[in-house]
């Protein structure tokens, strides 16, 4: 058998569900007194699953706690069969898990399960997203008054903006703290939640609807003066103050990257 055929045969065995080696693969192998060919193959077969399951457990701890170890493992094995690893780094192994869940379970579990997986994956994305020079309080202090009017920003590359329909953040936080998970509740209104990295640490925060609207408008290209104008109908003469309070918060959170004039 040629090199490519040998490798295909071993690959098919390792990625397959059964650890019973096919006869045509065994024929190509030489066992020893210490380790027979079939036992040697099973070591690789077990190691493949163990390694990948360990990565998924690490990336989706809250999902595992919610489902329980056994159901999580069933989900993970079904996922790996449908989406075997394609990237050279195991860091990307779980990328399609939220999407896979959509075809794996039915409602009413589907939506909250997928939402929790999406939230956990957002932390993985934020962890090693591109670095950026975010606007700092010191930058703002040096900003000449005339530049405030035209100040425009975008979100830092690590920011993931999620719309949560359930109390997923509370579930995630309880799992992280090693506490029993609270009852699943559907929120009266969808809630904006940001997951990002600042000073090397992953962070998260939910936003009230009016702050979410303001931030979306500001990072969508609106200038600071435009933001103040947009807040006028609701906030009246307090609009500039409210805009400044939010802007200070966003800067202190490390969410914003300044757009240069003309960008």
């Amino acid at each position, binding site marked *: *058998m*040629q*090199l*490519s055929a*040998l*490798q*295909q045969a*071993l*690959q098919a065995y*390792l*990625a397959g569900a059964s650890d019973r080696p096919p006869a045509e693969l065994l*024929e*190509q*192998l*030489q066992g*020893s*007194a*210490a*380790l027979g*060919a079939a*036992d*040697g*193959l099973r*070591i*690789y077969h077990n*190691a*493949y699953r163990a*390694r*990948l399951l360990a990565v998924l457990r690490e990336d989706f701890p809250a999902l595992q706690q919610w489902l329980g170890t056994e159901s999580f493992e069933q989900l993970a094995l079904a996922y790996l069969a449908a989406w*075997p*690893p*394609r*990237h*050279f*780094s*195991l*860091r990307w192994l779980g990328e399609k898990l939220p999407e896979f869940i959509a075809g794996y379970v039915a409602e009413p579990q589907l939506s909250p399960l997928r939402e929790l997986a999406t939230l956990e994956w957002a932390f993985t994305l934020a*962890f*090693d*997203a*591109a*670095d*950026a020079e975010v606007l700092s309080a010191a930058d703002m202090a040096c900003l000449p008054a005339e530049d405030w009017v035209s100040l425009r920003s975008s979100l830092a*590359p*690590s920011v993931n903006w999620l719309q949560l329909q359930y109390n997923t953040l509370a579930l995630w936080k309880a799992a992280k703290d090693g506490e029993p998970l609270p009852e699943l509740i559907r929120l009266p209104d969808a809630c904006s939640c940001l997951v990002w*990295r600042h000073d*090397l640490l992953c962070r998260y925060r939910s936003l009230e609807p009016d702050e979410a609207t303001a931030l979306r408008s500001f990072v969508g290209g609106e200038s600071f003066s435009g933001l103040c104008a947009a807040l006028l109908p609701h906030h009246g003469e307090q609009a500039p103050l409210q805009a400044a309070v939010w802007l200070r918060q966003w800067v202190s959170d490390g969410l914003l990257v300044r757009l240069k004039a003309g960008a």
Partner: protein
Amino acid sequence: MSMRTTLGFGLGLRSEYYQQILEQRPAVDWFEVISENYLVDGGKALYFLDAIKEHYPLVMHGVSLSIGGAHALDLDYLRRLRKLADRVRPQWVSDHLCWSRDSAHQLHDLLPLPFTEESLRHVAERVHVVQDILERPLVLENVSAYLQWKSSCMSESQFLARLSQMTGCELLLDVNNVYVSSRNQGFDPWQFILELPRERIRQIHLAGHSDYGQYLIDTHDAPIADPVWALYGKALSHLGPTATLIERDDHFPPLDELLAELEQARTLADQALSAEPCS
């Protein structure tokens, strides 16, 4: 005894120890980094990599090259590896003599090759390509194996020796892997080491394994076993001073325990190198 200079005694850089390394600057001569952990856009890993490289020499050690794979080489991966090497300026870049994927799917394991003339030609051709892209010799490591192909017509060490002669690649002798494979496959580990061209051995790996009685598994989760220490001492007497690195990838102990193990390697090396050369 060879008079070549070596990097000395190093540890595998793992995130568990980042902060402590920067704060305490332990007496480690160099660190080896897993290349794939740093092929990312940003964040903590790259931050600590940049900080630690200011204080220690680094070596890049990859696990995804799949130099023996029948698939096409992943040129995107190689370009990113090259870019990382330009950033890190490592002493050398290593990976394993193995295959780990097909054209689409990754197995994330270090699978042994059949040691045939066909494999040798195939791997040699790919080593040339990799060395052209990296603009440096590739350093290749022997792996722990739990299977052997009937079609092999030479040993892994003979294969590595010929590969090195054909391509100019250098070798990373993993003493623990030699021991694990020798127990699993019933060959003489000392013969394996003797078959390698000693002038091509750039580095040595040491690590712990798990003993299942009949066979061993290379788990990197325990202290180095006594027979591996013994083989290391004998290997050093034969090779002369050689950069030595201890790997730990699970059940991470306090850093001090790894430093003590590194000290044990230094002591053993002193003894081995002051004794009569072994051949």
